[in-house]
């Protein structure tokens, strides 16, 4: 890529969500979300259960069950909502699933190489042969302390909860996205797994990339330090501040923190 282009993109927000409203089966979940994520930033979105955190992640990834009724999502200057889920991935958007899906019969390495090459093809880059890909994969595996036999097993099949979450971050490390959205990746992880996951995310941090961490708990943010923390309540971001907000939330709970917030 040419340097000039990179500089141009640097000036542009990676993600710009504006007035986003979305519903599922006629029930309105997101009621006007505004969020701007610039290159190099890590944003945390926190909120109580049912506040719309996972809906936001699903809409970003392009789940068809959710209908966007108004508002817009601009990703690197392009209309994200116009793109198919696979096109979004090709453009560099990655969602780490809250509940990674088991796919019996699809080999983990085969799947990942198919994804990697599909993204390269989308970007009109040359596809990568198996031996070269395997080298990349083994390198990233070490990073996440994953057992090599996971490579030959079916995608997520028979993985423990922690292995599934680490497999998501492993996929992220291999696919090397521009924008990573982590949907409650920390839930159900013990402290060691949490540290490994956080380390994987921190390695991704770079001046031209961004991460959005969606979480219910403050504890992940001890290891992934966010630049901004947003509180999502009832489908709206009710407060945004620096990383200290997470600690405040932990101490006082959502009710106190959101009191007096603009409705």
């Amino acid at each position, binding site marked *: 890529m040419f340097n000039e282009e990179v500089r141009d993109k640097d000036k542009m927000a990676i993600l710009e969500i504006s007035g986003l409203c979305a519903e599922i089966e006629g029930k309105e979940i997101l009621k006007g979300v505004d969020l701007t994520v610039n290159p190099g930033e890590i944003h945390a979105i926190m909120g109580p259960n049912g506040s719309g955190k996972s809906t936001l992640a699903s809409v970003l990834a392009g789940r068809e069950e959710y209908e966007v009724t108004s508002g817009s999502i601009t990703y690197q200057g392009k209309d994200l909502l116009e793109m198919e889920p696979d096109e*979004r991935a090709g453009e560099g958007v990655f969602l780490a699933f809250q509940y990674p899906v088991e796919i019996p*019969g699809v080999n983990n390495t085969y799947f990942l190489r198919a994804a990697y090459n599909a*993204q390269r093809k989308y970007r009109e880059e040359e596809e990568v042969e198996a031996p070269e890909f395997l080298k990349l994969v083994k390198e990233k595996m070490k990073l996440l302390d994953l057992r090599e036999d996971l490579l030959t097993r079916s995608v997520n099949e028979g993985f423990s909860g922690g292995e599934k979450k680490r497999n998501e971050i492993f996929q992220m490390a291999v696919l090397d996205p521009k924008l990573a959205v982590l949907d409650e990746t920390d839930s159900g992880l013990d402290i060691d797994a949490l540290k490994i996951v956080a380390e994987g995310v921190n390695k991704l941090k770079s001046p031209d990339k961004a991460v959005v961490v969606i979480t219910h708990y403050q504890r992940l943010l001890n290891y992934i330090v966010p630049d901004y923390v947003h509180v999502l309540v009832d489908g709206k971001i009710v407060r945004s501040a620096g990383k200290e907000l997470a600690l405040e939330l932990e101490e006082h709970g959502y009710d106190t923190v959101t009191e007096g917030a603009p409705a």
Partner: protein
Amino acid sequence: MADLAEKPITTGMEPFITAAEALEQAEAGSVMPWLTAQRNAGLAQFAEAGFPGPKNEDWKYTSTKRLASFPVKLAGSPSEAGDVTEEDLAPYRLRDEAAAELVFVDGHYRADLSFRGKKACCTKITNLAEGIRATNQITLESYLGRHADEEIYPLAGLNTALFQDGAVINVGRSCVIHAPIHILHISTGDFLISPRVLVVAEPHSSAPIVETFASKGDGHCAFYNSVTEAVVQEGANLKHVHLNLQNQQSYHVGLFHSEIERDARTAHHSFAFGGALTRRDTWINLNEEGTECLLNGLYMPGHKQHIDHQTVVNHRKPHCESHEFFHGILNHKGRGVFNGKIFVQEGAIKTDAKQSNRAMLISPDAKVDTKPQLEIWNDDVKCTHGATIGAIDEVAAFYLRSRGIPEFKAREMLVRAFAEEIVLNVNNDSVREHIDDLLSKHLASWEE
């Protein structure tokens, strides 16, 4: 089986009976009396029962009308059979160079196209036409036609009356062969073909056998009515793979019958990709303690194809195991039928029988009827069965797409994975790779 006689289709039987009588006259005096007697008995069963009608519970979803109205014509001698080239056979040949391969064109053995592979001296492979003329017929007389139940399967009786050729495989005591023995059938015209195979696996032997049914191009309708009988003696291990790759106009009816003796095992795999109308019956008798069988099948009808599998696992003695896995993938106007019977006889305690049958409908106009049927005559058994019918898992498809894989590719990966679960149960590497290639071709034909 009382309802077998109920409303059989008797119209259209005459040409079949005439053909059998003509064959008997032609070979009069040149074959042993026991064979003539067997042919007569088989024909009598068929003549009495006729083609099974819709009132027969086991034929409820598969109409025999097309079979009964088939214009009966036999390639009476090898010279009446069509010809094939190496190019016609290439897609069906096994890649294992050590394999023995017997090629039959329109039912007749072609020595010039066959190889005996790296022949293991402990295995005797003969083509049946040669076998019934040979003087040493002890194996044949004591085994051929002694097992397949022609009362239950009148079409097997018709096969006995009409078979002209096939294979006789005798795997000797303690003989272990790894390279497959391949029986490759190819049709070139509108013939009724009745191949017969007899396998006797002597004690502690082990052998993989593959039977392929194929067509030379499209545009003809062959009717294969095949019977394979396998006797698996003490401690022996028989692996049998059936591949139906016939063209989209042809018919196939076939029975695989296996007798399993003490501590022996049989694996029977059926891959049904071809044919306009296919009906496969499998009957497994677990005759003594410690026996085991695996039934593994994949049927993939599309384009108005009809594929019906009926299986019977008969647990007769204690401490036997059976495992059965069938997957169906049904595309555009494809029709599938599966009926899996498990009988656990009185006294067959500690039986462990598992059956799983799953179907994936990938087109809204495809249809499948599936039924597990368990008859258990004692308490001390472990039997599980499950049948599911569904579409492609959209949640899994979304997961793949979210990683950058385009929708059509994601769907293809999931379909293939579902098929692969069955292919992976074939443990001979070269055969499994061959099936993988055939699967790819079949899936590619669906994209056209």
